[in-house]
């Protein structure tokens, strides 16, 4: 009889990385369905391409790095990175955009830095920025929101567009693409129109942030709440990020509502909600101390606003996240909590 003598504790909550990742994926699904309702099958097809590429890249790198396949492929982190990146790619982007971006994210952004747990940058954002800089045209050709009311674009049509650049009804990509609300706002503001003129003249802007987009944002918000409730993510980063963006945009909006769009437009337009709950909360690359997470969220909120308002990119989530990723270790160092029985400032 040999007794086992592992160190204490002898019980475990049963929480695994795969469990956390699965919950994040589950939280994304309502938003994916909503997105499909407004913009067609593109996101789902892109997601499948992204997942397959992610798993293949992960397996290849694990093989090269002589790591066991089963635990790491099963942890779900590669699948999630792929899905998040697919969410950021225009729904009708050619297939190789997705493949290239995801492969870059996982091979360069994740595994060359040491794989799961060691990557200083959010892999999905690394892939996204690479695509945005290298293929700006493909990465900014978004679908007009109400196009599905005018045209019947089915699953097969979408497949044809993504894989063979075959457009139905003899249309061209130009006819099927439009700017995002953030992009349109930026361009039109550059032409010295006022915010209210821009919004009234274009159906793109919907009720308060952008037709279709605002609904996707709502569902993402709901998914994010679920993640906080399940303690998969902490509340600090989303709250700090969104309130910072709200406060800054409200300040400028109140000063000059003709030049600066409303806080709601900033929060529900573009990728703010996605960033706040799903991207910036990536545990590996974010701050980990409770106070650090607040600083980190505030930092992202500020950078997003600065780039949107005065930079040359319409949206700035990816840049903001990557910049704050760089600062995370320093933030953690300076935001250590006060330990029980210690007096702050003294050791």
């Amino acid at each position, binding site marked *: *009889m040999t*007794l*086992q*003598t*592992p*160190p*204490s*504790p*002898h*019980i*475990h*909550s*049963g*929480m*695994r*990385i795969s*469990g*956390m990742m699965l919950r994040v994926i589950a939280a994304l699904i309502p938003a994916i369905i909503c997105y499909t309702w407004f913009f067609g099958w593109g996101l789902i097809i892109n997601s499948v391409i992204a997942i397959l590429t992610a798993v293949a890249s992960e397996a290849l790198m694990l093989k090269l790095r002589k790591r*066991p396949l089963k*635990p*790491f492929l099963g*942890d779900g*982190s590669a699948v999630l990175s792929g899905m998040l990146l697919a969410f950021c790619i225009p729904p009708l982007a050619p297939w190789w955009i997705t493949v290239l971006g995801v492969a870059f994210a996982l091979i360069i952004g994740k595994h060359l830095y040491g*794989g*799961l*747990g*060691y990557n200083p940058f959010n892999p999905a954002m690394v892939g996204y920025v690479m695509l945005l800089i290298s293929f700006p045209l493909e990465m900014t050709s978004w679908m007009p929101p109400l196009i599905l009311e005018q045209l019947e674009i089915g699953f097969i049509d979408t497949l044809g567009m993504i894989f063979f650049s075959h457009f139905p009804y003899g249309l061209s990509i130009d006819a099927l693409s439009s700017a995002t609300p953030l992009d349109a706002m930026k361009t039109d503001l550059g032409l010295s129109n006022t915010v209210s003129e821009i919004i009234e003249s274009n159906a793109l802007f919907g009720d308060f942030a952008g037709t279709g987009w605002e609904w996707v944002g709502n569902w993402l918000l709901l998914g994010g709440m679920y993640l906080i409730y399940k*303690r998969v993510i*902490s509340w600090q980063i989303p709250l700090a990020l969104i309130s910072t963006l709200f406060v800054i945009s409200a300040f400028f909006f109140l000063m000059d509502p003709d030049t600066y769009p409303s806080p709601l437009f900033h929060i529900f337009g573009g990728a703010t909600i996605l960033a706040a709950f799903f991207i910036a909360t990536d*545990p*590996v690359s*974010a701050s*980990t*101390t*409770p106070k650090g*997470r607040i600083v980190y969220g505030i930092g992202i909120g500020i950078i997003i606003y600065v780039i949107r308002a005065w930079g040359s990119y319409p949206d700035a989530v990816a840049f903001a996240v990557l910049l704050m990723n760089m600062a995370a270790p320093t933030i*953690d160092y300076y935001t*250590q*909590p*006060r*330990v*029980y*029985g*210690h*007096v702050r400032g003294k050791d």
Partner: protein
Amino acid sequence: MHRLFQFKGGVVLKEHKKDSTATPVQPAKLPPTLILPLKQHIGTPAEPVVAVGDKVLKGQLIARAGDTICAPLHAPSSGTVLAIADHPVPHASGMSAPCIIIKTDGEERWRPRERNVFNFAELSAQELRGIIRDAGIVGLGGAGFPAAVKLDPGGRPVDTLILNGAECEPYITCDEMLLREHALEVLAGLLMMRHALNAKHCIIGIENNKPEAFRALDEEIRNSGADVEVVEVPTIYPTGSEKQLIQVLTGKEVPAGGLPIDIGIVCHNVGTAYAVYRAVEFDQPLISRYVTIAGSVAHARNLEVLIGTPLGNLIEECGGNRRSLRRIIVGGPMMGTAMHSDAVPVVKATNCVLVESTMHDVPLPSRDEYTMPCIRCGNCADACPVNLLPQQMYWYARARDFDKIQDYNLFDCIECGCCDYVCPSQIPLVGYYRYAKSEIWNQEAEKRLADLARERHQFREFRLEREKKERAERHKKKRSAVAKGGSDDKKAAIQAAMERVRAKKSEQDNVPKNTDDLTPAQQKQVNDADQRRREQSREEKIRESPSESKAKITQDRP
């Protein structure tokens, strides 16, 4: 209502307490042999006062405390001392240590009562502590620190005496059963402790998952009118940890590296209070205690177990199969220690024996075999009741960076296991912290030895230097004495000697010499001889002088 505070973090665990609280507590069967480790407490081992072959009576002293931080041992039952030898003891390493092994005779004959006490209030605090110390009572909550030492505030005022009945670990119910069955005795023990400490307030803390225990105590307090508060605290692990219970009940924190007494608080376990009562009221030393036997056994329950009973006997008595054991955990599932053998005995601090079998029922939900990399999710930091950053400490433990890990306050870790429990990467975090702590202790021990060696070396250098200086000093003194021509009395002595010589000479001068009446030729011969002699002595002086000056030069050197 007592105002409650919160500690940060903690985890909510499945309790598993129902099984072992269904049956009343009964004495465990008397085992054929009792194994009594000489060191069952924190401090120095006790010293045996019996020899192999001696007959002992129940309650008889068999090993005495040789030191302040030590506890004596008493025979838990009557019988014969079979051996005083090394035997496996309940320790994580599976090590053996000196034990007194008693073959029981089944008669359970008590030693005669040595003392009659009817009113503890007439005893001085010192006398009360003496009784508690002589009864071999140690903290029964798990740490096993000699109780009499903890009941001596050393002149410092004690504001609050906290009795810990929280029992926050899953499965363990021995304190709960003790409170349900012996609330009055526990209360009496608490009042004795209060007397020893001269404490102003008394609070008993119980987790709110034990309403029967709470009611029993509450009733006894109301009936007796004792000025004691019993407070229900939320069931969050690790409320039963001393520091966390103090925080919940008083809102105060024990300073880092300090003791509760530093903030006027003393904390004892309810089982300890019961043992104190038995010692003071009935002159019974600590020879038995309540132990929970739970897990893969047919009848999970609490037994009143004689100290020294081998775990295997208890497991069998509760319907466990000794041949299909996978794990035996002494203590709870969060902080308990897995044993290497079921031959190890119950000691004074053993509160629970948790059994896991290979055969039937549900195994404990353990960590996965395969550990994933840390993903920095921070769940560990959220769960830490001490507000540490467990994942940072883990990185530094892995990197063997023992300076950095201490910057992150490794030694404030209470090893409660919350971080480990919630870690999605299933990393054995507490194992890493224990490893780092023991490495640091080893390094410090080595450093102490090295420091000692260096100190010795430095002292030797210093001593050699000092001796050299002293020698030089002595030489210098001697020389200066010679140069000055000595002191006045020396001079006088010389003077006197000269006088004597002169007197003698003049005396001689008066005596006719053979040179007095000389012929001129003879006179000349004498003069010539004198002349020669003078010249000779001058030449000698000239020859000597260079060496003299040389010698002077060497003497000038320091």
